[in-house]
């Protein structure tokens, strides 16, 4: 894939990820962190996202984490199972793979475009790579996470089509649209224009 020109528009993609919600029970505290460590998982701090291909984990609610990885492959089932077996008394592990759709966004005008429906300050110096937040976008609840190569966007699957249509329509004035896959978000830096 050739590198897109810097003046290209918003690039969008989807990631059919497995999404596991880990919700800590009372007093799980450091035991949960140790348990996660044993499973080889990192639980990021509040408002943080960690991306290490092919996995993403983020925290936008206190004592709750969303763990994402490719939905296909034996690892997906193994991961959910490992959490349920390994940390059952410390946290609830809930499959949200069908509940949340994962959208990917990059391109210089991506954040400028999001300002048409998102009330968060997405200035690249404010919402920096490694940060995650839950908010509303185009009237639907979303979770945004800034990865090195762009933004990851989780939305309820029932409103994913609405959001996709909104993104497509809103991106139109911002130049030639492009496509994107998850690999591009783990690496690579994308210049961001922000008004």
């Amino acid at each position, binding site marked *: 894939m050739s590198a897109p020109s810097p003046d290209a528009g918003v690039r969008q993609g989807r990631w059919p990820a497995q999404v596991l919600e880990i919700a800590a029970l*009372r007093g799980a505290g450091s035991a949960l962190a140790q348990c996660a460590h044993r499973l080889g998982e990192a639980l990021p701090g509040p*408002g943080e996202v960690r991306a290490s291909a092919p996995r993403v984990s983020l925290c936008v*609610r*206190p004592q709750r984490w969303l763990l994402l990885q490719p939905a296909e492959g034996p690892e997906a089932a193994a991961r959910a199972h490992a959490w349920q077996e390994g940390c059952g008394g410390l946290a609830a592990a809930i499959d949200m793979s069908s509940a949340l759709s994962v959208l990917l966004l990059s391109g210089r005008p991506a954040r400028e475009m999001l300002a048409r429906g998102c*009330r968060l300050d997405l200035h690249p110096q404010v919402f920096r790579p490694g940060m995650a*937040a839950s908010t509303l976008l185009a009237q639907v*609840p979303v979770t945004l996470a800034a990865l090195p190569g762009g933004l990851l966007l989780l939305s309820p699957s029932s409103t994913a089509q609405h959001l996709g249509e909104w993104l497509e329509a809103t991106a139109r004035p911002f130049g030639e649209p492009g496509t994107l896959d998850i690999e591009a978000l783990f690496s690579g830096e994308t210049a961001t224009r922000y008004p």
Partner: protein
Amino acid sequence: MLRIPCPFCGVRDEIEFRYRGDASVARPAAQADASEFFRYVYERANPLGWHAEWWLHVGGCRQLLRLERHTLTHEIRAVAVAAAAEPAR
């Protein structure tokens, strides 16, 4: 429009929150009589000045916040997480 500083999420617009009523009244104990519950549900002070309120951050961390809002100036202070669970950051 109010801007509410959520201890977990940062300052957010009012639209992300659901107002959950007067936080200056506490739910009476189970054995309390109906008149105490009547006061809990229906009687409100309507103060001019600082007022304790519940706001649920439905568009963010989904935590219940207890805060004080000045009913004249809309200034907001003393925002705290009501949650029982683990303390937020």
